[in-house]
């Protein structure tokens, strides 16, 4: 009991010192700490969004839309392939999550299968899949072909094709969301993937998530199409659309106060993926968006405008026509201006969206929480106050109840405990939430438990007539087993909370678990050491417990 190995003492003192050093940065503002020289620890406890204010959004990638998009694309590919091979077909279209058609001459089955075979490749033809090396798909094939008889052929995504498609969509969405959020200019915004098809966006300091939702609520798929002037609107509305054209709405108001509609050719002249820049600008004193293509896109755009002088060029965003200006002359410079029904804000937002790129599928907000900075500041203030008062109350109780010597030792252990909790949290960059503060208050209440266990045990041994030194020795040893058992049990519960819990549950688990570890440390080493030194110094004839 009395002989503490000098190594152990040094180690304990080092840990306490490290605790002080690592919790030290929390006393300063982030900006001050950033200017410190490199060798100093700079980790600070992260405040949760509930304490500093901010917005939390949980988004889900619409997997049905991803599949549907692929099927639409596939329909076009099948059409081109069958025509190229001279195979007659009818009723080609998307049915549920598959593409189906019927052969006019069932005898052409072999030829048809031969024609569509090249479509079925591991690497896929969509932009999203190109990032996967061929062979990523188990079994290699993206599509599964079914022939329910009667000359019908059905193509649907294979299991592997489906999952590769979804994985690609989520990674791409993640990237685009990240870029769009970066455009907000908020420091420390975080975008993370969660589970199979979800994205968590956390933006500290942003208390109104509306702006973020507007930013993420659009897929922002930009395409340029030539307007089909040969098909009058009335014919199109009555269902007389030629196969290569489509009817699109617009945000622009017509003279009669109704939103305009356009018939445009399906073929995309050039798409948003070729954009390299977009900026808000003014045109004729109206807010507008200027854009620039990469060289390939610029060439395509140049050619198309050259061939279509005098035609209308529809600028389509998410299946809505922004505007459809007349092509007066070929646009060869690879850049242009989108004018339309913009305010300065919407023009800026569109520019941001275009720069960041299109989402492969719409994102749905399935959970949203935001806390204003005022409430967060209130919470910190009351949390800190509660911690201080709780600390003082426990401090006084221990002093009164266990006397100046042992009370003070317990209180020292308590302070070391709190310093270590802060140090560990700073070192790990753990997040402190409001329930986490509640956890710390509880740590205060329970940190003294180990001292109480030790003291009560020593008291019992003294009562049983042991000598002071034997009482201390037995007291510590017997109490230690209890401390370990009870703390390990609580720790197991805490770890389960940390792993399976979400939100406030997790925030609580973090401080609770760290608190248990530091409590065990101080109980096993620190308290024992201080008591040993006290005994050697005073050599008391009786233990004041």
């Amino acid at each position, binding site marked *: 009991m009395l002989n503490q190995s000098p190594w152990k003492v040094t180690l304990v003192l080092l840990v306490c010192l490290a605790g002080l050093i690592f919790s030290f940065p929390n006393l300063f503002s982030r900006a001050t700490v950033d200017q410190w020289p490199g060798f100093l620890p700079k980790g600070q406890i992260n405040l949760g969004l509930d304490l500093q204010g901010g917005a939390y959004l949980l988004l*889900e990638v619409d997997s049905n839309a991803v599949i549907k998009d692929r099927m639409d694309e596939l329909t076009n590919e099948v059409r081109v392939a069958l025509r190229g091979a001279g195979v007659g077909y009818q009723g080609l279209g998307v049915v549920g999550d598959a593409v189906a058609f019927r052969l006019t001459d069932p005898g052409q089955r072999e030829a048809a299968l031969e024609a569509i075979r090249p479509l079925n490749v591991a690497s896929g033809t969509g932009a999203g899949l190109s990032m996967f090396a061929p062979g990523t798909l188990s079994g290699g094939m993206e599509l599964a072909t079914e022939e329910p008889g009667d000359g019908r052929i059905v193509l649907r995504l294979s299991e592997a094709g489906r999952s590769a498609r979804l994985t690609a969509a989520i990674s791409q969405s993640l990237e685009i969301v990240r870029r769009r959020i970066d455009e907000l200019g908020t420091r420390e915004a975080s975008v993370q993937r969660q589970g199979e098809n979800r994205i968590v966006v956390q933006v500290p300091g942003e208390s109104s*998530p*509306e702006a973020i939702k507007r930013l993420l609520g659009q897929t922002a798929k930009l395409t340029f199409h030539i307007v089909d002037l040969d098909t009058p609107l009335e014919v199109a509305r009555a269902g007389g659309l030629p196969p290569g054209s489509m009817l699109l709405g617009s945000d622009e108001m017509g003279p009669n106060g109704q939103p305009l509609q356009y018939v445009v050719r399906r073929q995309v002249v050039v798409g948003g993926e070729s954009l390299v820049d977009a900026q808000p600008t003014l045109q004729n004193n109206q807010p507008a968006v200027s854009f620039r293509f990469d060289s390939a896109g610029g060439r395509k755009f140049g050619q198309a405008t050259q061939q279509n002088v005098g035609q209308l060029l529809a600028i389509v965003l998410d299946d809505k026509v922004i505007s459809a200006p007349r092509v007066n002359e070929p646009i060869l410079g690879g850049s242009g201006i989108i004018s339309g029904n913009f305010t300065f804000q919407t023009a800026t937002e569109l520019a941001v969206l275009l720069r960041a790129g299109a989402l492969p599928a719409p994102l*749905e*907000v*399935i*959970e949203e*929480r*935001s806390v*204003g900075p*005022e*409430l967060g500041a*209130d*919470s910190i203030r*009351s*949390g800190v106050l*509660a*911690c201080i*008062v*709780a600390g003082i109350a*426990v401090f006084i*109780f221990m002093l009164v*109840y*266990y006397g100046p010597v042992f009370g003070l030792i317990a209180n020292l252990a308590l302070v070391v405990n709190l310093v270590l909790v802060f140090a560990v949290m700073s070192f790990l960059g753990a997040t402190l939430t*409001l329930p986490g*503060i*509640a956890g710390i*208050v*509880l740590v*205060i*209440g*329970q940190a*003294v438990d180990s001292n*109480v266990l030790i003291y*009560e045990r020593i008291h019992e*041994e003294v009562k049983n007539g042991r000598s002071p030194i034997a009482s201390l020795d*037995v007291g510590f040893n017997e109490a230690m*087993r*209890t401390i370990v*058992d*009870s*703390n390990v*049990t*609580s720790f197991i*519960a*805490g770890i*389960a*909370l940390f*792993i399976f819990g*979400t*939100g406030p*549950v997790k*925030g*609580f*688990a973090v401080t*609770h678990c760290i608190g248990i570890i530091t409590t065990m440390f101080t109980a096993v080493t620190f308290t024992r050491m201080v008591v040993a030194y006290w005994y050697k110094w005073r050599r008391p004839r*009786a*233990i*004041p*417990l």
Partner: protein
Amino acid sequence: MAHRLRLVPDGLNIPYFRYRWPFFVWSAVVLIATAVMVTVNGLNFGIDFKGGTVIEVEMPGPADISAMRSTIDALGLGAAELQTAGSDRDVLIRMEATEDQNEQRARIEQVKTSLNERFGEGIVYKRQEFVGPKVSNELLMNGVWAVLISVIGVLVYLWFRFEWQYGIGALAALVHDVSAGIAIYAFTGMEFNLTSIAALLMLVGYSLNDTVVIYDRVRENLRRYKAMPIEQLLDRSVNETMARTLATLFTTLLALIALFVLGGPVVRDFTVIMILGVIVGVYSTIYIAAPVLYYLNLRAIGTAPPKQPAPVPAKG
């Protein structure tokens, strides 16, 4: 020996075990009442678990709830529930989940716009939350899993470190404590949300701590007093640890009361559950966890056969 203040006199000898039946009946009544209450009335689930929208606003002056309600009702968005929170300027607006997520999300903006139009721009939106039905189900399941996994982990640990009877005893105490916690929610109508799960689990953590301390003493006394009848041994263990039990209960309560008074409205419900919970935890250790050991016939298994001469009591 120095005289000092003690919460518990030395040589305490309360025969807890003899008075067990009234407490067993009391616990049984509470459990049954809770079960009935929860089945009939249900818990007041917050939006975390049933989905929906919450907006917390701070009005520039004392809030006119009925005027606010009529403003929001005029939007025709379905039933909105308004109540003051904290001061008379703070108002909580709750709206139930709808089928259409997009519509539900759009409501927040509509409500904000209409409140701004009616009451001016001085309104501070302190907090807004929206939880879709898909997420709320998952949050509830995650909460249940967290509870189950932690309970299983604890049982396995106790089984390894002690005997299986201790595991069962701790489990019984745990079930009792969680039920008592839920009972508080059921009877007071306090909102049951994610934070409630954290509160329940922490109460479980505290109660377990308490149980393990006494179990530890039971195990030690079993080795020390080979011939002592188990009832007497359980009483002795509880009495010997009572000083520690009360001192720790006292410091924990001090800290929790500070949190209750000063911690602000957000953690208040949490603290209420914890304060009642730690008391329930101490109770359940004495009247659930300890008696279970008696009924599971611990003495017959945990020790050497009684016919052998009892060895000298273990000394430090």
